[in-house]
């Protein structure tokens, strides 16, 4: 009984609102600082990147590019008049600045060296864009060979939502569903595609099936990932691994796919799309964890940002939280686990960048969607103090016979040895033209057996597993040896593929 009270006490300290600037839930050792944005300027962040000299460049929805001198904490405007600049990339050697805006990728050149760009050079404008407000262009990452990558939002095409009939092109609902189910469409070329632009400026449609792909990220091996929002054909928010020629689920983009040329996309049976579909590497359960995820970013700070080196962080534009992902390569394909990390910041988190000190900068925009925190836009930093090890789930990896869960600190043996302390729920999702999907076939289970490693930092949860399911693992009852509970005690593992004994 005493232990329980102690635990509750710690829980309250971690999870109750302490001050306006302090998130409800934040792992021990992490701190949030709010950066003042330029006074009287709308500042819906669209992209963030550090220049080689340490200046932070931020492009905004309003069309500005701001430079922040981090030491002197001074803002200056580098460019303006862009059309919703939602991504930026700066050459780490030459300091060349590239932004992606609705109509094009633009290189911003300060030819007279006065500190502001005077030449707005079109680098690539090969995709179609109309005045449909959903036709965002997101980016911008570049691989080591010098190829750029970005993602193109579908058009808002359903006349019930759109202002004009002219965009009512490429909506897909398929037979047996009412036509109103297809909400997004393709009013111009390559909407719903991820693209590559080669060093010589050639545009290559790279992967299809995207809906509202608000964030793209790249790892150190040049592997690409993007996040998508729940919607028509999208059961829930999701994280996907982009591979050339992959189809990520939303069929409108197939209008520009050579194999579908001249075909009526609504006459193609849904099963055919499903066969082609590469499932998300990680489902981000809508409502539980995120509603509109932003940019995924990998922690390559070498431990400066805490014990999660190599893992991925994703902010959400609606719930204003930061999530943490650990990918698990199973039989050649990525799947993995997602946790909440900080919940929540001052407003919607959409763009993220690490500085050289290992501080995570979080670019924010609320965009009128009533993001948690309530601010309209902003910029915050998340910093680890460099010494305090938070008590946290570190990772969840699939095993042939269950999940291997690791913690940052040894767990209390007595609790960890009882399978009843690890309740699990799992479910599937529909693949259909409807807006989002309910959880399908939700089942509850208790692991058959738990085995705790010698150092008490790893627990194997044994159970029978099913593929194409999301497993929600609940560690609310688990404590470490000091009786501390976990700040974020839930883990959602997307199981697309089962692991075999000798994988």
């Amino acid at each position: 009984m005493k232990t329980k009270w102690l635990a509750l006490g710690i829980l309250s300290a971690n999870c109750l609102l302490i001050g306006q600037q302090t998130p409800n839930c934040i792992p021990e050792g992490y701190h949030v600082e709010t950066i003042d944005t330029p006074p009287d300027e709308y500042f819906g962040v669209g992209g963030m990147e550090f220049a080689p000299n340490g200046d932070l460049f931020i492009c905004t929805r309003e069309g500005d590019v701001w430079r922040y001198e981090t030491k002197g904490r001074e803002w200056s405007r580098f460019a303006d008049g862009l059309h919703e600049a939602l991504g930026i990339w700066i050459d780490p050697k030459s300091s060349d600045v590239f932004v992606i805006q609705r109509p094009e990728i633009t290189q911003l050149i300060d030819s007279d060296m006065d500190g502001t760009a005077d030449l707005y050079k079109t680098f690539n404008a090969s995709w179609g864009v109309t005045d449909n407000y959903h036709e965002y262009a997101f980016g911008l990452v570049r691989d080591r060979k010098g190829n750029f990558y970005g993602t193109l939002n579908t058009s808002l095409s359903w006349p019930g939502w759109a202002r004009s009939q002219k965009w009512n092109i490429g909506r897909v609902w398929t037979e047996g569903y009412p036509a109103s189910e297809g909400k997004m469409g393709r009013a111009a070329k390559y909407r719903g595609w991820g693209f590559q632009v080669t060093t010589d400026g050639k545009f290559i449609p790279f992967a299809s099936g995207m809906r509202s792909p608000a964030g793209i990220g790249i790892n150190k091996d040049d592997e690409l990932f993007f996040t998508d929002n729940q919607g028509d054909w999208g059961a829930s928010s999701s994280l996907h691994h982009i591979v050339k020629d992959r189809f990520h689920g939303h069929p409108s983009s197939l209008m520009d796919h050579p194999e579908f040329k001249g075909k009526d996309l609504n006459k193609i049976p849904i099963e055919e799309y499903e066969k082609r579909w590469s499932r998300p590497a990680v489902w981000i359960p809508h409502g539980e964890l995120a509603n509109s995820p932003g940019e995924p970013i990998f922690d390559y700070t070498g431990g400066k940002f805490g014990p999660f080196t190599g893992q991925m962080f994703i902010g959400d534009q609606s719930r204003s939280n930061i999530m943490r992902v650990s990918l698990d390569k199973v039989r050649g394909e990525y799947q993995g686990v997602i946790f909440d990390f900080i919940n929540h910041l001052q407003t919607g988190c959409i763009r993220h960048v690490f500085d050289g000190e290992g501080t995570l900068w979080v670019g924010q925009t609320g965009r009128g969607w009533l993001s948690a925190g309530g601010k309209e836009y902003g910029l915050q930093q998340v910093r680890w103090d460099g010494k305090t090890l938070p008590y946290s789930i570190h990772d969840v990896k699939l095993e042939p016979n269950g999940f291997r869960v690791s913690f940052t600190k040894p767990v209390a043996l007595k609790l960890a040895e009882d399978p009843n302390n690890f309740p699990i729920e799992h479910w599937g999702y529909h693949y259909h033209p409807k807006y989002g999907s309910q959880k399908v076939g939700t089942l509850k289970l208790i692991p058959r057996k738990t085995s705790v490693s010698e150092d008490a930092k790893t627990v194997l949860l044994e159970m029978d597993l099913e593929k194409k399911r999301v497993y929600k693992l609940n560690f609310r009852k688990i404590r470490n040896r000091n009786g501390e509970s976990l700040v974020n005690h839930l883990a959602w593992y997307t199981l697309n593929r089962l692991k075999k004994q000798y994988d």
Partner: protein
Amino acid sequence: MITLWLLLISALLLLFQVVGGEEVKIGTLHGKLRFDPEIIVVPKGAKINLLFENQDEMIHNLLIAKGDSKHIDGLAKKALDLGARGMDLGFIPEDPSIIASIGLVQPGETAKVSFGAPDENGDYPFVCTFPGHALSMRGIMKVVEDPSLVKAATSPEDLSVKKQKNGAIQVGSLPRVVRVHFAGVDSGRSIAVGLPSGYSYLFDAEKLNVRMGWKGGFINVNNDRRGRGGGLCSILGKRFASGIAAFPIRIGDPTKVPETRFLGYSRAGNPTFYYEVDGIRIEQSTTGSPPGKELTHNFKVAKQKDDVFFLFDPEKVQLSSTTAGKREKGTLRVHAKDSANFVVSLTSLDKGQEGSPEL
């Protein structure tokens, strides 16, 4: 004798104004299209001597009226509707709600008006109704029993938030170049250019033509770039036809729609657009000229051997002047040797329309 009398009367009047009323001053902020202060407080029923100091580099007027902000929108519209008479009337419309007004005040000048404050406590808005200014140049005259009790209210903070939200973009001493979507302009890639002269135009980076010109204020991006967005940007001025259809520059053959590529623009000085027409590099810059419906386009064509054609719509514009070429109906044919740098002025034949209607 009469002069003396007049002098005496004015001196008396001046004296009366100085000693016989409440002194209030309203200024303008330089380059911001804002009043300063944006809230004034006056006693109920008092005689008010208002000094209007225009520190801005643009012309402004000032009128105080009874009514809400919607009513002020209506007054601004009425001022615009004065059209050609507007300049003479100082863009002050006739309306019974107007309590006091000062017509056009040149940059750096001052003007005065005396009037009786309303007998009823309340908020009375003031506004500049010079075309394009009314959206951001607004304030409140608070009428109260005792102004000394209403100190905090003179801070314009609340209004500054409103200003920020209203999304109007103004042109100061440097041109503005802003990507936009306007109602009625079916282009995903159009670029609004606002020049310090008060002229603006829309360049279509897809069809490579100037789609329209306008004079007055520049643009408002509120519906597109605030909140959820989804709306269109609007024009804060009086627009007129450019008379230029898609792909107006043709190399060699005026009937062939060319292969084109947009290359970007320079903002060093007057904005210059770069593009290719059938592989030939073109530079284009545009300016406006009085009396209000004329745009002048300067084209620089990279060296090549064919004649260059510039297409326009003679039903919408009159080709008022050109530095090179031979005019045919709707076409200007410029010899290859003259095409390196030529200028075309087009005067709109339409009467001009206010802003851009929302679809």
